């Protein structure tokens, strides 16, 4: 997916002005935030201890990523899978297309993989004559809506409402329009069944890769994941290199965190562990398994100020709880990953200069850091990105000059006192005797939706001084 992150401001404005979307966002927030809160409250022991354990597991992996990846490769190969490496989106596409060609595939069914979005894999497949069919209901909706990008990492079509989906289904499937969710789901199943049976290849992401067994773990609520990974003869797993966990036990710990943080479920409806190719005693499974392990910017975070970001297990809790995401939705962020984690990842993976707004578009309230199951300090990482922007001269000079002037004056108390006094006089003049300023000329952004309370009159400093003098 080509990044549109430079248009954040404009896209956010459009989302704010769309009442339909706003209604949708409000509902979504209620759903995810409340169910997570319930799940955390109902958790039988201390959820914060569990978060510590999750963080430690992820830190252990990230600290020695090469070791765990080698072990994974060894174990996966022993079980008959092939392990391929891709450094960027282009290489992902090249690998997948080569695999498709080798096995004479002309249709690929897909379960959710954000990396295939990073790589624009569907477009590459289509261009090479391989039909990609999304089977996650949300992704399927987006695909038939003209390949719209996802707006949430676990609920990709979160921005669409029922009526839109009903219209879309009727138009695409040439069936009578239905508005009941079960009926729509059934219709999608019927359409997809045909694809499940006729596809030569299944492409999936992976929630975790387990080093000790060489397995990929898929966590879904729809069961499409297991069809994609077992029905076709060829299964291709496309995941980031950081998705690895050492052992099955570690995986079990993270599985206590992931669904609770994501949807508020104790466990998701389906958890599949796929290990290697179909053996002689197996009833089903692919004859060929490929792992495409992707860097696409990840290795660059190792040893950097942003290494902690590699702990992310893609639960979506940070965006669900983010006041900015709740207001503008995922599309405003302009790339694959939205919300706080997206603000960090997009800046790092697509280049700070291509995402100038994203590190700034945060109140740094740190609600994201509080809910992140692996304790990623997301607000702090966004702040560090601002530092890098400043160091690399990526902020407007006017902004930097204003800050520098402010800091310069703030180090000269007498001058500062004078500036404060004059500033307050000016604001009072703007208020014109009222208790508020309706248009704040110097900061028009403030007054589009708010008044600015007028200062009380004189600075504390002035009043305090005269009080001390009258005391003396």
């Amino acid at each position: 997916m080509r990044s549109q992150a430079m248009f954040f401001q404009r896209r956010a404005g459009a989302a704010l002005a769309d009442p339909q979307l706003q209604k949708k966002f409000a509902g979504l927030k209620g759903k995810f935030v409340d169910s997570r809160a319930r799940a955390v409250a109902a958790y039988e022991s201390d959820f914060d201890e569990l978060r510590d354990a999750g963080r430690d597991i992820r830190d252990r992996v990230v600290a020695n990523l090469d070791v765990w990846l080698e072990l994974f490769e060894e174990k996966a190969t022993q079980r008959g899978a092939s392990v391929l490496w891709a450094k960027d989106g282009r290489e992902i596409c090249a690998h997948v297309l080569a695999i498709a060609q080798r096995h004479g595939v002309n249709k690929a069914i897909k379960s959710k993989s954000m990396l295939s979005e990073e790589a624009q894999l569907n477009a590459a497949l289509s261009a090479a004559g391989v039909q990609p069919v999304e089977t996650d209901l949300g992704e399927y909706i987006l695909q038939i809506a003209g390949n719209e990008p996802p707006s949430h990492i676990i609920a990709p079509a979160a921005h669409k409402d029922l009526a839109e989906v009903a219209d879309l289904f009727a138009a695409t499937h040439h069936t009578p329009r239905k508005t009941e969710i079960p009926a729509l789901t059934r219709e999608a199943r019927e359409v997809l069944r045909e694809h499940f049976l006729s596809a030569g290849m299944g492409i999936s992401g992976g929630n975790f890769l387990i080093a000790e067994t060489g397995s990929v773990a898929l966590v879904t609520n729809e069961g499409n994941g297991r069809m994609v990974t077992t029905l076709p003869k060829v299964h291709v797993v496309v995941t980031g290199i950081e998705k690895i966990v050492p052992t099955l036990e570690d995986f079990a710990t993270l599985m206590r965190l992931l669904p609770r943080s994501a949807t508020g479920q104790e466990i998701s409806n389906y958890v599949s562990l796929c290990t290697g190719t179909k053996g002689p005693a197996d009833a089903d499974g692919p004859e060929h398994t490929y792992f495409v392990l992707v860097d696409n910017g990840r290795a660059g975070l190792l040893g950097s100020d942003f290494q902690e970001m590699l702990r992310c297990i893609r639960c979506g809790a940070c965006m669900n709880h983010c006041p900015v995401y709740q207001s503008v939705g995922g599309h405003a962020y302009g790339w694959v990953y939205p919300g706080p984690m997206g603000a960090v990842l997009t800046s790092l993976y697509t280049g700070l200069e291509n995402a100038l707004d994203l590190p700034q578009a945060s109140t740094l309230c740190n609600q994201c850091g509080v809910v992140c199951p692996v304790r990623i300090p997301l607000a702090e990482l966004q702040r560090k990105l601002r530092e890098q922007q400043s160091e690399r001269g990526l902020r407007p000079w006017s902004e930097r000059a204003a800050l520098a002037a402010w800091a310069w004056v703030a180090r000269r108390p007498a001058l500062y006192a004078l500036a404060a006094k004059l500033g307050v006089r000016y604001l009072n003049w703007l208020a014109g005797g009222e208790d508020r300023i309706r248009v704040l000329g110097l900061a028009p952004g403030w007054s589009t939706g708010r008044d600015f309370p007028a200062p009380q009159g004189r600075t504390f400093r002035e009043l305090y001084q005269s009080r001390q003098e009258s005391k003396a």
Partner: protein
Amino acid sequence: MRVALFVTCLVDLMRPSVGFAALRLLEAAGCEVAVPETQTCCGQPAFSAGERGAAAALARKTIAEFEGFDYVVAPSGSCADHIRHRYPELLADDPAWCARAETLAARTWELTQFLADVLAVDTVAGKYDGSVTYHDSCSGLRGLGIKAQPRRLLGRVAGLTLKEMPEAEACCGFGGAFSVKFGDISAAIAAKKCANVQAVQAGAVVGGDLGCLMNIEGTLRRQGDEATRVLHVAEVLAGSNGKVA
């Protein structure tokens, strides 16, 4: 006990009544309060903007002014949090300054936390006829763990009823420069906060950070709500309820 009052730049400029209320509360609790004259800004805005150099320079200046006191108290969770957690980190490369930063950090408190946890204040002068709701500002809440202290103290104000609003912990959308750079997003978040304030039909919304309060007040007034008062917790506890004493 010698306590230095860190007035904060917003209080100095916009709402001196908060500074005087803090002063009165500390004096009533038996502190010998000084207001160092040369204090300006703690440097948090520069730090949040990514201007590390400027933030470090202001940190050094502030440390020099405040380090002689037993305690430093600010009527602001975000400034107190900044001094407490960021100064040592900002000056980590400079062992001598870092040590001074750590000493200051350990002595720096947000006002309600200081009153409730350090001084164990049990009675306050404030009187308030009616109900208020409390907004938890982000830095105080998540940075310093301030939640119970202001509520406990407000509970001691004669005549005051505390009504909890839905999502009291949700950010009001202020975020310093964010409120200006992304005015429309900030205003949308503030509007949700104000809807929650209005939902409990309290006479006033009270908080511990002036930035958030100005954001909430400006939004309420723009929406035509002239009735809901917006007060700093210090003003309510001291009984000045918004008047410059």
